[in-house]
């Protein structure tokens, strides 16, 4: 039994403040991009900004409800919540397709996407499952169970098909990594099958996930920049660099930077070990990027086509490359200070040059109107939110709370990274929204509820005795 307290006591005000700032910025951007001279009122619910305001208010109301309920239920009811989401994910497959995907449940414009809520319920169940494990239980069986908690909704979402949300679900792998639930047991099975080898752990197995992702990230960037040519002017010496050599150039830059940082901050004992890791990392990464670049050239045409289609490097049936090119033009034309509020000439809905500029491509009008300065502010806000969530995560007494917090952080990070990446040519165009900015009820509600559950868990962290 806990004593009666005011709702806002123990609320993490910095995170809450950042959330409200983002919601206001997002609403302002939607207002700007979808502005209609004939209905300028923000409270006009036939306009997108009116509806977005409604969704924000409704989401805050849901947040209030979350705060009224004891946070204990999330752990207790994680399994039923998860299962009912699965049912919804199955049901939605039988709904009529909207834009070619069976993703919407409900009528007309007031439908919801169960996939958005599956992120929350999967987070909850994953947190519950992993928090129940001890370090010794890290076996092949537990790794597979944890993976299947992700895999079942992922498969259902892929059937819709919704590639974007599918990719977002891989963010949970980072959470598993953070909790020490890695693929090492599986790898050890293979390694130890070699006669005479008896490892307790392997470095590659333990850090399998970040290594894998670093490599995938690097390969994608190499491929995307393959066709780009940079002009670098070094002391009046004009260099023409291909995109992939640009990647290697960037890697060397990062290496040098980390080396300088290390000289300054680390002890001598750590230094030599980290030097080895860094140098090895640089060599492996450069080789990989080189191999991807050359290997891609050697592929057969139809294989190349398929990869280029996926990455949106060529005009495909959905015209993603066309969208991306226009989106990049909008972002790039923002300049340092931007064109000014409601002056987005390329990405406003009215000019109709960038499709989906109020939803998946909302970063375009923002970057066009506020320029690089605005981008820095936005990035600062996101970085602050992510950093703050990780601080919150690390101060939890209960493993459940910590794991859930990491889930939230990673999901938000994924959305941020892929969505912005789409706008600047660093990620394939797989329509996923920018949290708290993009127009749309489902994403607004799910992200808010996700964050409010975290805030509530955090507010009640001291109640937990374990």
């Amino acid at each position: 039994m806990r004593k009666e307290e005011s709702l806002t006591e123990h609320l993490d005000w910095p995170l809450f403040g950042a959330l409200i700032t983002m919601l206001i910025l997002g609403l302002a951007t939607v207002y700007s991009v979808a502005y209609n001279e004939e209905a300028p009122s923000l409270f006009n619910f036939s306009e997108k900004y009116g509806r977005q305001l409604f969704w924000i208010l409704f989401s805050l109301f849901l947040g209030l409800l979350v705060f009224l309920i004891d946070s204990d239920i999330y752990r207790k009811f994680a399994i039923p919540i998860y299962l009912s989401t699965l049912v919804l994910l199955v049901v939605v497959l039988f709904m009529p397709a909207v834009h070619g995907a069976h993703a919407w449940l409900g009528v007309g414009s007031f439908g919801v996407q169960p996939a958005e809520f599956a992120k929350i319920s999967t987070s909850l169940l994953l947190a519950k499952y992993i928090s129940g494990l001890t370090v010794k239980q890290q076996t092949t069986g537990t790794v597979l169970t944890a993976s299947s908690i992700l895999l079942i909704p992922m498969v259902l979402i892929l059937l819709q098909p919704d590639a974007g949300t599918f990719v977002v679900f891989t963010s949970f792998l980072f959470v598993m990594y953070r909790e020490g639930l890695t693929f090492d047991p599986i790898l050890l099975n293979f390694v130890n099958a070699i006669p005479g080898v008896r490892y307790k752990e392997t470095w590659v197995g333990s850090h399998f996930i970040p290594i894998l992702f670093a490599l995938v990230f690097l390969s994608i960037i190499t491929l995307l920049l393959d066709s780009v040519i940079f002009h670098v002017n070094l002391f009046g010496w004009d260099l023409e660099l291909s995109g992939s050599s640009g990647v290697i150039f960037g890697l060397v830059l990062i290496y040098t930077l980390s080396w300088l940082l290390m000289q300054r901050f680390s002890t001598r004992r750590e230094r030599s070990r980290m030097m080895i890791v860094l140098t090895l990392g640089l060599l492996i990464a450069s080789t990989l990027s080189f191999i991807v670049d050359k290997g891609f050239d050697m592929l057969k045409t139809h294989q190349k086509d398929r990869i280029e289609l996926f990455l949106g490097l060529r005009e495909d049936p959905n015209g993603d490359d066309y969208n991306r090119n226009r989106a990049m033009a909008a972002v790039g034309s923002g300049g340092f200070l931007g064109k000014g509020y409601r002056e987005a000439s390329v990405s406003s809905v009215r000019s109709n040059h960038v499709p989906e500029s109020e939803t998946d491509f909302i970063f375009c009008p923002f970057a066009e109107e506020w320029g690089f300065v605005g981008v820095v502010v936005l990035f600062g806000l996101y970085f602050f939110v992510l950093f703050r969530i990780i601080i919150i995560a690390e101060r939890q007494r209960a493993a459940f709370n910590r794991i859930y917090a990491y889930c939230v952080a990673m999901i938000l990070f994924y959305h941020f990274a892929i969505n912005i990446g789409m706008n600047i040519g660093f990620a394939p165009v797989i329509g996923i929204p920018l949290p708290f900015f993009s127009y749309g009820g489902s994403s607004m509600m799910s992200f808010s509820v996700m964050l409010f559950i975290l805030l509530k868990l955090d507010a009640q962290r001291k109640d937990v005795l374990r």
Partner: protein
Amino acid sequence: MNLDARRNVILSFIFLVVGIYLVRLFYMQVIDDTWTLRANEIAEKRKEIFPPRGVIFDRGGKKIVTNQTYYNLMMVEDSIVDLDTAAFAKLIGWTRQEVRNRFKEIVDGEGSYYNKITGKRTPNYQTIRAYPFLKELTLEEMSKIAPHLANFKGFYEEATSARNYPYKSAANILGYLSEVYREEIEIDHFYKPGNNIGRAGIERFYEKELRGIKGIKYIVTSALNNAIESYADGKYDTTARQADPLKMGMDVVLQTYGERLMSKKKGCIVAIEPSSGEILSMVSAPSYDPNLLVGKRNISANYPKLARDPNLPLFPRPLQAEYPPGSIFKLVQSLIGLQEGVITANSGFPCDKSMVGCHNHPSARNIAEAIKFSCNPYYYQAVRRIIQQGVKRNNFADAEYGLNKWYKYIRSFGLGKELDADVSGQRPGLIPNSDFYDKWYGHHTWAFSTIRSISIGQGEVKLTPLQMANIVAIIANKGWYYTPHFVKSIGYRGPLPQFRKKHWTMIDRRHFDPVIEGMRLVVNEDGGTGKQARMDNIIVCGKTGTVQNPHGEDHSVFFAFAPMKNPKIAIAVFVENAGWGGSWAAPIAQLMIEKYLKRKVTDKDKEKRMIEAQIAFKNVD
């Protein structure tokens, strides 16, 4: 295992991504201007300025293709304020309903684009964008509207240029312009929807040489899309440049005269300057005024009429009509026979009418006489010696050997293939070789007796009038030719490289003399078939031809070059369904030669008779 350190791995991931993205964004937004220029292009803040097309001169320096200013009445829906439809309709002379329909038409037509992906027209009408409401108004039409435009906000005039053909002739040579197709825009991004592109003739072949270099101007606009100033002080702007003029080898006076001579007749005239290969005149009769196909309005009004005309004015006869060459082929056969050594200049053959029909004349005692009399049996006997040389024991194999040898000679005259001329839409004609007859009859089942009609240019052989005129030029040059072409110089750069290369036939120069002598006899000696082409002071060498026509009256054909020494003009004249070659084609050729060499014609009666004659021409109202 220290799991807490893994927090740092995740944090550095986040840090890295945010950092890389910021660097990238700084590059895109602050350093690199590419995206800003692209955005200006997308938002149509990039104006493309198209220069007027290059002008075209004839060989005498007369301007035969010029540009004329036209006006478009543009409209921007967002700028329109309280349009008084009735007053506006009255101003442009339309009904109110027509004005309303035009607005709808713009939204569905100009305001939509073809989506490659879905294969459908997709609406893309934008109220802030300018669309042409009326196109291609003349100065007179515009001057009636322009003073009142101040009352109609959202409408303004915009000047464009269109072609003008002051001589009203050579439509078949010059071609015309029309709006680009979607496919052409996709291939060549020079064009924007609504631009014109050369659709036929010189305008098409020299499209890239005529269109010039377009200018680009970046502008900064206000919210209402009015241009305020140029972007970055015009740092990225480029100026439009008109293309250098084309100088043609055509003589516009001769061309116009030829079209007059051929009026109310069907057929064609091709005249070439032998020493350069420049085409002096290429008449395709009946012809039409090229100004009929200037601009969208004219094309939609006049093109269907021309296409429906039973006299086929749009059919480019000199390039596409494939006729059996008839008697001119005898000249080529003589040359091959002489080169192969199977006959000599003094070989005589009896006029044996049992082989093939001929008209009444004494037997030819040498080649010159054979040409003068155009003796058919003579050439049966002469060509038999070329085809059946007795090299192989098998008669059929021998014919195969001989025909393929003959084929190589013929090809060296530029026959059986399209000439590499600066005009598209030529037909190759047909010169049969052994493969052709093997397919037709079967391997080793044919010999000279099967294919003998090629001896006199009948049967399977087909040539276009352009190719035949080129044969005349070759004979005038005694063995070589430059590929016939229209444009003698692009700017001051001379003709295209392929027209600077001399092509040699496989015939030695000395073998031409008896043939040319025969052509002189045709015109200048009594009993010759072409005395209608005779001239005072100038020796014309010619050859009549009568092309058998299974569908009606024979075609009248005449080939000539003049003067005999140092020839200036080689000409081929075809008059369809006009009968015997000497009757119509020869006098027309003579008038053309006189007009070209002396610039005036003495025999006015003959001229009048030729111009007024109507042959196989259907009157159209």
